[in-house]
């Protein structure tokens, strides 16, 4: 099949007598054989109210991620961004060259606080390394098409390594495949459906995130308690995975999921939805969220309704942590650490120095609990700061991140 496509592509090229920026590999395989894994279990107890299992659910990935939570990461203990869980190292000798280096970065967007914190962190990481003489970054502004052009443009800039944070998994795959032969490619955050990048850096993943929160609620909320699940929007793989894992956990539990709602990540909408549920059900015993950006708005809905704030799942965003501490809440914060923005720079330098790197670089993905809250909450950081930036010891801290 693939050969046929390649042949077709080749003949098309010949026929047109023209050049193409299209990668000749054609349809490429996903990085892991996840798609061929057994179909997800879709049966759920009707009472759970969690609906059908997501079509994004892949059992093998789920199992792998949940297992990774308990595995010990290799690497320096005080630098989680340099740690890797169960690394399969690959040789990078063929990329070895002398510095100084020109690194390039195609960024999907800087359109939300998480990316903002990450982007700042990455720039500071670059500043730490004298051997990087030039760092060229293009912002795709959340547009797939622009990112495809950006990647093509960066390839012509004589980059020694190309870091890509893809805007969308499926649609950026051809562009990434196209860049691989020309330059060592490092992909992080969202993945692509090809294994051509030298390394793919990510925290453990969405299943672990979702499960961390759900397990917390199952532990804290008495049996029969009502749980409200708030999701940002459907269709984003990372977010789908978070919910899928939570769903699996809830389905096995004695909790009643009274609703699964989409908030568009809009604080006002979140607050309205939660208010409606409080009004309708009188009492909500737990709130699960697939991202913490609107957690505070959801908490406020309880405050404004004069209801006690139930067990909450948030994220490592400063405003939530602050609220948690001030309100002495029962809460947990799974994280999708922004320190992963440091790793690609480190990885790029390793590659260019010929040091081996993990093929899939699984970063540890801690969750913030009541016990560790004190260590992560830094009072003088802005409300939309993400605590797991791993940036506290960087020279620009805290000013560059807007802190005081």
């Amino acid at each position, binding site marked *: 099949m693939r050969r046929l*496509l390649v042949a*077709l592509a080749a003949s098309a090229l010949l026929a047109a007598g023209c050049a193409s920026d299209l990668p000749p590999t*054609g349809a490429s395989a996903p990085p892991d054989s996840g798609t061929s894994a057994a179909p997800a279990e879709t049966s759920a107890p009707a009472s759970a109210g969690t609906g059908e299992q997501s079509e994004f659910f892949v059992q093998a990935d789920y199992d792998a991620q949940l297992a990774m939570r308990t595995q010990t990461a290799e690497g320096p203990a005080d630098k989680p961004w340099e740690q890797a869980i169960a690394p399969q190292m690959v040789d990078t000798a063929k990329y070895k060259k002398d510095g100084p280096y020109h690194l390039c970065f195609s960024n999907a967007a800087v359109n939300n606080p998480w990316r903002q914190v990450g982007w700042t962190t990455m720039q500071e990481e670059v500043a730490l390394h004298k051997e990087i003489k030039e760092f060229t970054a293009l912002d795709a502004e959340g547009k*797939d*098409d622009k990112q495809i052009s950006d990647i093509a*443009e960066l390839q*012509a800039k004589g980059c020694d390594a190309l870091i890509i944070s893809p805007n969308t998994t499926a649609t950026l795959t051809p562009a990434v495949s196209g860049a691989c032969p020309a330059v060592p490619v490092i992909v992080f955050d969202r993945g692509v459906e090809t294994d051509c990048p030298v390394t793919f850096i990510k925290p453990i993943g969405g299943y672990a995130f979702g499960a961390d929160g759900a397990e917390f609620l199952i532990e804290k909320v008495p049996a029969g308690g009502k749980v409200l699940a708030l999701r940002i929007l459907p269709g984003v793989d990372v977010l789908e995975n978070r919910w899928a894992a939570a769903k699996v956990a809830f389905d096995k539990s004695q909790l009643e999921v009274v609703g699964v709602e989409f908030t568009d990540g809009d604080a006002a909408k979140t607050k309205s939805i939660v208010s409606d549920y409080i009004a309708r059900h009188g009492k909500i015993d737990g709130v699960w969220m697939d991202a913490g950006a609107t957690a505070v708005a959801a908490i406020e809905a309880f405050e404004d309704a004069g209801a006690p704030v139930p067990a909450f799942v948030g994220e490592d965003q400063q405003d939530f942590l602050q609220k948690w501490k001030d309100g002495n809440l029962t809460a947990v914060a799974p994280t999708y650490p922004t320190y992963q923005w440091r790793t690609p720079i480190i990885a790029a330098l390793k590659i260019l120095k010929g040091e081996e790197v993990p093929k899939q670089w699984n970063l540890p993905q801690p969750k913030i609990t009541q016990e560790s809250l004190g260590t992560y909450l830094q009072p003088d950081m802005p409300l939309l700061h993400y605590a797991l930036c791993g940036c506290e010891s960087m020279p620009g801290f805290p000013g560059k991140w807007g802190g005081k």
Partner: protein
Amino acid sequence: MIALVANPTRAVYAALIATLAIGWALVAFDGGAFTLNDIVGIQQRSAALGIVAVGQTLAILAGSLDLSVAYLISLVSLVAAETMAGQSSNILTAVVVALGVSALVGLVNGVVITKLKVHAFIATLGVALVIRGVLDHLYDGPAGRVPVDFQQLGYARIGPIPVAAILWAAVAVAVWFLLRRTRLGNRIYAVGGDVEVARLSGVRTDRVVIAAHVLCSLCAGVAGLLLASRLGAGAPTVGTDGGYDLESIAAVVLGGTALAGGRGGVAGTVGGVLLLAVLDSIFNQLEVNSFFKDVVRGVVIVVAVAVYARRTGRRAS
């Protein structure tokens, strides 16, 4: 200089050349240089917006406008990619189906505006919402797969010229030809200039407006196909992420076409799109952040239209 400003089309090209020159200098000062790759980038970057804007020109010339193009682009990319399902043999069917869907949306826009007498702003905004609802309901994320053959549309080049740019040029020339050399084109200007005059001259004005909308939607459909070929799949947010609705209107107006209709043309629109693309490219070279870009873009659009308004104002008084 006065002569340049006297004609919006000439003005926008003058601005384009000036921007290129200034951009070149700035980039050189910054230690970079415009390469062949950047030129290719500009063409690639502008092709999709260019095609949409050429279509939007038709709607605006006819005294209307179309806010539904962005969602239509997403819809078309999905319809095409799903119909192709990775098979080269399905390409033709997919293109036909995709363009059929586009034409249908254009027809609905046109009919709602002319027969139900709903203001174009509301009509196309309403249709946009309907498409959005359908998209959200049916699709969770990228879907379908575009075969490699079809991806050539988005990636192949003939020498330094990307096929996408050739497609854009072809669409622009076709629409230019339509406006200059066909009855429909003539009547689009007439209807946009003065509906009553056109009606009294025997022009079936409703049909002209509907035709303009169908063509506008077809252009959006072509852009959707192009984007699907670039992405290798259909994506429910590709149209809105690109901001093709308001940006295409901005490009048209930047090109000197009057928002009220009846005056302007494709040449100006092409200039407007290229101007935006060159600005983009320069900003990319200088790694200016996207917020600053928005500010500059907003200023450029308002200033350009203010300059054109001064021109027509002087003539009127």
